[in-house]
């Protein structure tokens, strides 16, 4: 068990280093973009005079390294600073959106993961059957369409007939039940988009194992095919499955901006696009760090879980 703790500690330290490097890269990239916050805020109606006044007020005239240092010093003390474009604390701006994004990601995961694993196991069990081919074909079709196309198709079928709303509107008084109802279409879209990857990995991992001698032994003992797969094959196939699930969860948190736009879902993706187009660096940094942390933590979790599920790794000599 100590080994696990050591691994977690090491990986967390490396994760912090990764985050630092990412923040430098993002800051540099935002600096390279043409225009600056003052110009984007004033837009087409900017004049040289008002630009100069606004730059002075926002402190944009400081050299870039100094501005980065000021930001970093704040973050190290747990203060992500103020959004310069909205003059609101970043924690307030990002907090609610982060909650929404996590809700949608978990909702989609709660639909997609069991569905994909079930399909994968059944497809492996009845491989090369009609069921296997049909579920493969459908899953691959769904993943091959662009997300917005899947979304619009669902809107056409399920929203225009009045079954589900085509947009999500979250207010202070929205209950969890209403949230689940309103966010059903975006969650379903995401489910369709991520299922194929997880399902095919599950199927491949299990089929791979079904050729091994110990499975043959189990069969020869006269076990039912279902029991062979669930008791003997799945536990050994967990490591790759956990990895692919973690990857897809990270995607659900970071990569859903198109879905957010189509369903008017107030998540982090839209906020990030707004912030990039406004050159609001502090907000871009905060969201990037959240996204990067999601990847770092989920990968760590996947590694820890695959270690725990594999006795050979747990009891290394």
């Amino acid at each position, binding site marked *: 068990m100590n080994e696990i703790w050591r691994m977690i500690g090491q990986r967390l330290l490396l994760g912090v280093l990764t985050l630092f490097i990412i923040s430098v890269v993002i800051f540099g990239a935002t600096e390279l973009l*043409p225009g600056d916050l003052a110009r984007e805020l004033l837009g087409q109606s900017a*004049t040289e005079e008002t630009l100069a*006044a606004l730059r002075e007020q926002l402190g944009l005239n400081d050299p870039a390294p100094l501005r980065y240092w000021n930001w970093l010093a704040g973050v190290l003390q747990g203060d992500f600073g103020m959004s310069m474009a909205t003059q609101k604390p970043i924690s307030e701006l990002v907090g609610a959106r982060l909650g929404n994004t996590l809700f949608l990601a978990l909702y989609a995961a709660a639909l997609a993961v069991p569905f994909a694993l079930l399909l994968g196991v059944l497809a492996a069990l009845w491989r090369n059957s009609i069921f296997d081919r049909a579920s493969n074909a459908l899953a691959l079709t769904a993943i091959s369409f662009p997300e917005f196309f899947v979304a619009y198709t669902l*809107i056409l079928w399920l*929203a225009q007939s009045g079954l589900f709303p085509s947009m999500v509107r979250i207010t202070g008084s929205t209950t969890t039940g209403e949230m689940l109802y309103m966010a059903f279409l975006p969650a379903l879209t995401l489910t369709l988009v991520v299922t194929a990857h997880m399902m095919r990995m599950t199927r491949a991992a299990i089929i791979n194992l079904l050729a091994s001698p110990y499975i043959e032994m189990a069969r020869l003992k006269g076990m039912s095919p279902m029991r062979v797969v669930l008791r003997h094959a799945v536990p050994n196939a967990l490591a790759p499955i956990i990895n692919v699930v973690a990857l897809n969860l990270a995607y659900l948190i970071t990569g859903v901006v198109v879905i957010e736009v189509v369903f008017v879902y107030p998540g982090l993706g839209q906020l990030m696009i707004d912030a990039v187009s406004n050159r*609001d660096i502090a907000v871009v940094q905060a969201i990037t760090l959240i996204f990067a942390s999601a990847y770092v933590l989920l990968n760590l979790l996947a590694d820890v879980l695959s270690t725990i599920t594999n006795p050979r790794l747990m009891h290394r000599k």
Partner: protein
Amino acid sequence: MTKHLIGQGGMTRRGLLKSGMAMTAAGLVLPAGMAMAQTEPKKGGTLRIGFNSGSTTDNYDPGVWDTNFVQVFAQARHNYLTEIAADGSLVGEVAESWEASPDAMTWTLKIRSGITFHSGGTVTADDVIASINYHRGPESTSAAKPIVDPIVEMKSDGPNTVIVKLSGGNADFPYLMSDYHLPIMPAKDGKIDPTSPDGCGPYKVDDFEPGISASLTRHSGYWKTDRAHFDGLLLLALPDPVARQNALLTGQVDVINQVDLTTVSMMSRNSSIRVLSVTGNQHFCFPMDTRAAPFDDNNVRLALKHALDRQEMVDKILYGYGAVGNDNPIGPTQQYYAADLPVNGYDPDKAKFHLGKAGLDSLDVSLWVAETGFTGATDAGSLYAERAKAAGINITVERAPNDGYWSNVWMQKPWVASYWGGRATCDWMFSTAYAAGAPWNESYWDNERFNTLLLQGRSELDDAKRAEIYHEMQAIVSNEGGVVIPMFASFVMGVSNAVATPDVVGANWDLDGFRAVERWWFA
């Protein structure tokens, strides 16, 4: 002092002329079938509007508003000194009436008494002065700074009178005060609070989440009794055009703006909604840098003006929702519109003739476009290039990214795509985008005669003389200006049949001059 204009309800020579013009114009621009059975406005209901804009950076600071969402949100909670009525005439709002000195340099505004802020106080001259002052001075970052710069002094004379001194005569000063950046907000120690939603308009803010939504309820003490019929408003940011249409089709909103023109015909098949289209001053254009070769030669500019098929652009880019432009930014609904100017039509021979006069056989130019310049700019550029070939003009269409377009391409590259929402008066439009040295003179145009006339027209109080001046100016712009204006684009809105709209819908801005929230009602 000359009694010049009287406020709401009053009729002057100018008002009479204007409303007559607007009636004709409205007849032209409202498509058949638009005329709804008119009923007396009813009170009640919550109007839900889906907007094409809305960003997390939206805020209460009047100096930075520049998208439909914040503009309508502002008109929902604020009143202004003056208002452009739906027919294009000017009526008083916070200012009950106004008079000018004979040189139009000193204006005395009478402030309407009994208007209350949502927070309870009464609107006084001090509030008005503080609200306008916010945009003045070297510290100001306001987009309205160029509008209020000519003000040299503002002082109150009692709680209901404001005296404004200008650096030069301006007969249109009351029009300028209707600008959406200039709401009247409560003053504290001579300053307004640009982070406060407090205003004296028809609705007060309950909740505002920038980039998502705003909800408002009726201000019980609102002074206009025949306006603001809704109990509440819900303004939603729906930037995706398909999401916006879906919201209207599934009944989640009552009104949307900027209907996607490529699918409008399919949307209008739905019998529970209607498409509302008004043509005003909004125009799409291709400004050239008149300082740079080859655009410094007016013959080249004329050749380019004759090398595009304007009607085709209206048909193919605007899907018919617009009108042909004549390189003149003054729209047909405006008071001093010069309807009798010769039309710069598609004529390759004439274009060749002008090229020849410039000493050229053929011409190679680049046109920078992006969809943010105006919707359909890329296609419009290709269409232009295709038609110009016949005149021996090779136009290379350069696609620029939307991001940073206004800072890196517009007014930086020699020939670009751009648009204007339009301004309510000739002087306002010309001094914003055509006067020498104006910050947004996008063609860097400097015409001596034009600039002289501009100053004359501005301080002229006599209508007949002004009409003459503006006629000549429009002729100069159309003939010598550096901006190709192929089309006036309509404001196209989708409206649920549950919502009733007045006979005349304002054409000065989108959504009934941003005033749908107080002019419309539930049928």
